[in-house]
């Protein structure tokens, strides 16, 4: 497991039904591309987050496949529609098999 992985998500606390909201996510991860070499000329093995998903009440919002060309600390901003109150679930999948999860509740009036 890569060290110091910390997901951060920004979701508004309240919204009206059917409103479009903007979500920002960032996870601290070094995203080693597999292209770099260390001081002895050996290739540093690839270690990245290869998939990110966002779901709201078990319905998918966005599903992203990441390649090594995504920057360190992958950041995503996207829009979602919220039909009712519920919970956003965000999942990141690491190359080494680790899964990082975080959730945010939103109240719809």
């Amino acid at each position, binding site marked *: 497991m890569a060290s110091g992985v910390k997901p951060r998500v920004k979701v508004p606390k309240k919204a009206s039904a059917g409103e*479009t*909201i903007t979500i920002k996510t960032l996870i601290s991860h070094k995203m080693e*591309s597999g*292209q*770099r*070499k260390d001081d002895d000329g050996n290739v540093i093995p690839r270690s990245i987050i290869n998939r990110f998903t966002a*779901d*709201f009440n078990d*319905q*998918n*919002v*966005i*599903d*992203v*496949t*990441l*390649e*090594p*060309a*995504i*920057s*360190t600390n*992958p*950041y*995503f*901003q*996207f*829009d*979602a*529609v*919220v*039909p009712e109150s519920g919970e956003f679930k965000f999942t990141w999948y690491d190359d080494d098999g680790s899964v990082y999860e975080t959730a945010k509740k939103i109240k719809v009036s």
Partner: protein
Amino acid sequence: MELTRRKILAVGSGALVFTSLSGLPAFANLADDAIASLTGGKEIGEGAISLTAPEIAENGNTVPISVDAPGAVSVTLFADGNPVPSVATFKFGPLSASRSASTRIRLASTQNVIAIAQMEDGSFQKASSNVKVTIGGCGG
């Protein structure tokens, strides 16, 4: 044949043109191949989606990119000058509102960033943008 200064110059520049022609498209072909395998050789339209990228990126390690593709099912980003041309694929679910997304990417050098969107009817749309990179983002 008598080799004059002028003739030598002509032959030399001809050889230069030839080597630069055969050398350059190697990278672009990688991206073209990746795009062709995604679209299955179908025709790609232009104009329905937009890709926002900076004209000049001082640091190739984090280049902010955003794509806006109304009516798209998925959007794939390519960078034609990177060692691996594919960058990311966004699949939009039923609760996605505007079919737009932003992220930050790595660019090795000055190159084109290309977005290919698959629309709801199965057709493909393309948008591309040239980004000048001052410091490359692939380490080494």
